[in-house]
């Protein structure tokens, strides 16, 4: 008898989401009828030229913007049904962001940066630090806990930023060009960290213009003129076997 393996839960569901800016002759359709499902343990890369809608998609996914039509659900909750305050709380508890320029607070140590969102959410300083140290260990920079951002390399700062994005209960990581400020080999190290975090259950959505880095994801989604035009991932082993048999 075949074992039943239910699909992992959908962490992010974007259903026919469109975002229109302006009106009349100045209407800009930044995103048109986008559909995307991201499950726990899944890593998806978004690629496309400038102005294709990548950032809009990421902003909608993170609740930083709302669609003009369609739906965005994070862990089953429709963001449009939340008040501004409720949305801010959901963002803080569920979603982590990683940016090209790290966005760490310069006056705080690595551990304090990572603990900060938990403290904002009412965690005690001690509990938050404990969770922060665990998150730093998971991204391989536990030894930098008491160092400030100015004393870190770009790769180290980005590892701290990933730890902050996934500290505590957060399971959805949105990364906007996370390797943009890094050299090639450090960029590869960051992709290894993101891949590892996804393999351990996080859902990762990453915007990148580097095909080599997108290839670390499970799928690459292509955007053009506001529309998802295609998506691809590794070859299906069954397809390869079928090709060999032909």
């Amino acid at each position, binding site marked *: 008898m075949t074992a039943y393996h239910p699909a992992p839960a959908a962490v992010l569901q974007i259903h026919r989401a469109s975002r229109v800016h302006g009106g009349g002759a100045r209407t800009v359709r930044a995103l048109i009828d986008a559909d995307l499902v991201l499950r726990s343990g899944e890593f998806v890369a978004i690629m496309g030229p400038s102005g294709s809608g990548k950032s809009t998609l990421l902003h909608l996914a993170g609740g930083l913007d709302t669609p003009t039509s369609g739906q965005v659900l994070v862990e089953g909750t429709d963001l449009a049904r939340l008040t501004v305050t409720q949305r801010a709380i959901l963002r803080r508890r569920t979603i982590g962001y990683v940016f090209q320029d790290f966005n760490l607070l310069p006056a705080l140590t690595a551990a304090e940066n990572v603990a900060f969102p938990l403290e904002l959410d009412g965690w005690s300083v001690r509990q938050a630090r404990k969770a922060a140290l665990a998150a730093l260990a998971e991204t391989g920079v536990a030894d930098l806990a008491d160092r400030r951002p100015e004393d870190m390399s770009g790769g180290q700062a980005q590892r701290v930023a990933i730890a902050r994005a996934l500290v505590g209960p957060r399971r959805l990581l949105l990364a906007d060009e996370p390797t943009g400020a890094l050299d090639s080999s450090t960029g590869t190290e960051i992709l290894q960290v993101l891949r590892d975090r996804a393999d351990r259950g996080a859902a990762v959505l990453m915007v990148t213009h580097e095909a080599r880095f997108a290839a670390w994801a499970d799928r690459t989604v292509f955007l053009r003129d506001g529309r998802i035009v295609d998506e*691809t991932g590794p070859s299906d082993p069954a397809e390869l076997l079928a090709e060999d048999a032909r």
Partner: protein
Amino acid sequence: MSVKHALLALLSWRPSTTYQLRKDFDTSTGQAWPLNIGQVSTTLQRLERDGLVVRDGGASDDPSAPGQWRLTDAGRAEVAAWWRRPVPRADRGRDELVIKLALAAVVPGVDVADLVQRQRSAIQRTLHDLTRLRRDTDPDDLPTRLVLGNHIFAAEADLRWLDEVEETLIRARRRSGGTRRRRDAQAGPTESTKAVPAGSTEDIPARSPR
């Protein structure tokens, strides 16, 4: 490189004599891979044997005969399938991808944006496979890692080149659109002056061969 498909693609544009086909092939591919008349003639005879082309008048084994070659229905289906089919990286001897895109810029009616995206997706898939293979390779197995790294960078170079091809064709379309609009403004409004969304890669017009 598929001479067969290149000739079929040119014949999908217009019927042609053997000599004209060779000339069109050279001009539309920047003379990067010049063909001799014997190669063209032999390939056309094989295509005729396979039912993909027919010749109106003149002996098919005489390239100097005046008759024109044209596609059969099977030939049209073959060339349509070729446009849709991404070129596998492993099969890129005399680079078919370069020839295909050079022809796509010239032959009317080819959806260049779709062709570029299909190829981009196929190469990205290869990149996913190579990356996975390299991740699964023993870190101490340096020869395998280096070879895979070479394939990864080559695939990435192809993708960057596809981006450049797309940009070049969009710019060419804007230029020809601007010229057309100026011409149409003098002649009065027509269907061809309908606005195209900025940045759209649809409807990239074909050029005449150089």
